[in-house]
């Protein structure tokens, strides 16, 4: 009996040592994914792009600073409880997380701050986490939902011939009835105050994303001047199809950047021509980075999926996400003077991340990844902006230059909401001066 206990103890010790060695020898970047369930259409390209980028880095450069990057996937099904469970299961030695879910992001903010692991919610999650004095471990560069909303309305204003032309216009806001879809509503209310348009809210229940008939009946009746969609999962393709069914002018239908994937418009094909969506990353594979991706990943048979998603909007977005993390790891290693960095080192580096046009060119990602400059106080980056892409009938093409967000309006809102959060949580905002 004693021998058995001793054996078990020795086994456990050996496993601990092995696990420590494994952790020490790798850079642990867990990937919370949703390859299954109703949101898989968006989740698969995101998971593939993230994994393929780090496969390329491991194959081409032998990892980062001599250490291989370990991307361990955990399936969340886009469910908040499972996302939190995945985090708890994989957080040992983790450097950063990006769960691609606003619900999961909200649930992880306090846990990750306590664990000193940065949460990079690139273009999603809690907008007010852009205030780094209150949310030191949460980052949402290169832009947030609130700023995206203002940029979309700036685009509309430009198209109408001036922001004053928005007065009296009617907008339909279709959104997933989920923390993600509700996130921009405070900004929309402010925009209404500022520009004098009206908007009708049309929530789509997650349980019946493909049943939107009553919404489109109302839209047929109210005939809005624009439709703005904050969609995810099957609700997006359903909305686009229903819009074409009622013969809505697709050029007045603008999706947010999570409603910008090819899978949104492909089912409707040619009839969806003109559908527009915001984005902050390039589309296609016409970037030098893809030469390496092809050489070290696709041609080597090491792609995460079947390779068919490469170059699509959401795949590229995940590549951009991975590239930001890659650059942050390099910076963290440089700043700490060691290869085997911690979450805390990552946080410090992320606050110093400054990628200008020359850096992006060196990464082979000009036009694919937006330059960004993060600071201690501003975790969203200095120049939040969007591009507008348009569906040609078979693919998306970017049709505008960068459209700046209205940060003069959103920043005070961000700071006041963050201050309220700090008060509620008993947090003393840190000084960034």
């Amino acid at each position, binding site marked *: 009996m004693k021998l058995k206990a001793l054996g078990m103890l020795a086994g456990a010790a050996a496993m601990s040592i092995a696990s420590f060695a494994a952790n020490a020898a790798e850079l642990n970047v867990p990937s919370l994914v949703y*390859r*299954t*369930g*109703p949101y*898989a*259409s968006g*989740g*698969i390209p995101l998971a593939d792009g993230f994994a393929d980028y780090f496969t390329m880095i491991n194959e081409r450069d032998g990892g980062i600073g001599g250490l291989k990057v370990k991307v361990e996937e955990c399936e969340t099904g886009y469910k908040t409880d499972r996302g939190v469970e995945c985090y708890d299961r994989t957080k040992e030695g983790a450097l950063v997380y990006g769960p691609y879910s606003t619900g999961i992001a909200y649930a992880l903010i306090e846990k990750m701050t306590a664990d000193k692991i940065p949460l990079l919610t690139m273009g999603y999650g809690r907008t007010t986490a852009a205030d780094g004095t209150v949310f030191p471990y949460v980052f949402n560069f290169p832009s947030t939902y609130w700023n995206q909303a203002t940029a979309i309305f700036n685009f509309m204003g430009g198209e109408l011939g001036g922001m004053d032309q928005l007065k009296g216009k009617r907008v339909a806001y279709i959104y997933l*009835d989920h923390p993600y879809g509700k996130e921009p509503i405070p900004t929309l209310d402010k925009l209404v105050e500022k520009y004098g348009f009206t908007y*009708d*809210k*049309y*929530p*789509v*229940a997650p*349980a*019946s*994303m*493909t*049943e939107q*008939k*009553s*919404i489109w*009946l*109302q839209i*047929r*009746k109210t005939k809005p001047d624009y439709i703005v969609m904050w969609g995810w*999962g*099957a609700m997006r*393709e*359903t909305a686009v*199809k229903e819009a074409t*069914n*009622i*013969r809505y002018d697709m050029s007045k239908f603008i999706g947010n950047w999570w409603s910008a994937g090819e*899978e949104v418009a*492909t*089912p409707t094909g040619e009839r969806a021509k003109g559908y527009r969506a915001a984005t902050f990353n390039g589309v296609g594979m016409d970037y030098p980075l893809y030469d390496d991706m092809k050489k070290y990943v696709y041609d080597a048979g090491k792609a995460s999926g079947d390779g068919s998603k490469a170059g699509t909007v959401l795949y590229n977005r995940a590549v951009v996400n991975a590239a930001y993390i890659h650059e942050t790891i390099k910076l963290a290693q440089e700043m700490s003077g060691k290869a085997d960095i911690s979450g805390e080192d990552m946080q410090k580096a992320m606050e110093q991340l400054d990628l200008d046009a020359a850096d992006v060119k060196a990464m082979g990602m000009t036009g694919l990844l937006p330059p960004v400059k993060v600071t201690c106080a501003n975790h969203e980056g200095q120049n939040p902006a969007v591009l507008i892409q348009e569906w040609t009938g078979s693919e998306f093409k970017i049709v505008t230059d960068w459209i700046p967000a209205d940060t003069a309006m959103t920043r005070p809102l961000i700071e006041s909401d963050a201050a309220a959060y700090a008060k509620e949580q008993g947090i003393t905002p840190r000084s960034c001066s």
Partner: protein
Amino acid sequence: MEFLYSIFVTPFVEMWTAPEFLAEVVLGGLMSGIMYSLVALGFVLIFKASGVFNFAQGVMVLFAALNFVGLIDAGLPIVVALIATILIMVALAFAIERVVLRNLVNQEHIILFMATIGIAYFLEGLGEMIWGGDVRPLNIGLPDDVWFVGDILIQQSEVFAAAVAGSLVIALSLFFQYTRTGRALRAVADDHQAALSVGIPLNHIWIVVWAVAGLVALVAGIMWGSKFWVQFSLSTIALKALPVLILGGFTSIPGAIIGGLIIGAGEKVAEVFWGAAYGGAIEEWFAYVLALIFLFFRPQGLFGEKIIERV
């Protein structure tokens, strides 16, 4: 006061002033209801024959559609893929009877219900393992445009679905009424033990009924999949069938159709005319409220069998 006005005055004024729009909403709702009925039919078949609420019916819709579209993508002609999928659904019925149901004969209904939850998870995982989690287009030439009658919009796909649902109901009614197996099914539905005592093989009947439910699931999967592609959200359409079943009765095929029509029209009218007063998205719960209101007056559902037990 404004809230009360939006509940008791505004909707009726809108209906009165725009009767064409009201007609379109009701018509659209009826069409949606037919789509729900297609899913509800599968539930009814299994409940009728075994008294089991098949939690896996929604996933069976997904599984059938996944196999169908997967086989087409693999290069099979549509007709061959259809026949192969039918065979798969029949094989699935065999497997379910052999592996799950046979071992649970004489168990409480709740045990069988729990088993169907297991079947649902298994099928979802199996479908994902074989065909992947990607969204798959299903283009088999079903009508996909709209008609305008005056200013009223009618979707061709839904008219087609209504025709298919009508044909299915007729076919199933004939099957139940005039075939030997159909009569046996009705006997089993009435009384398991009495049916067994006159030599009707329960296991055989279960295979038949699960196979027919599988075929109904395939039809529903093709209809929904053609509209919005085949994707994992298909399994959640079962939720839309629940109020239909509560309203129409769990044992009535015409009940599934009539229930679908009432739920479809009711929820659309509620959402369009009263939704704004409650902040929108009320059709999710309104369908259940509507079904519950009917239950106050007919606890067995509109067409369900009234069970009278001797005390």
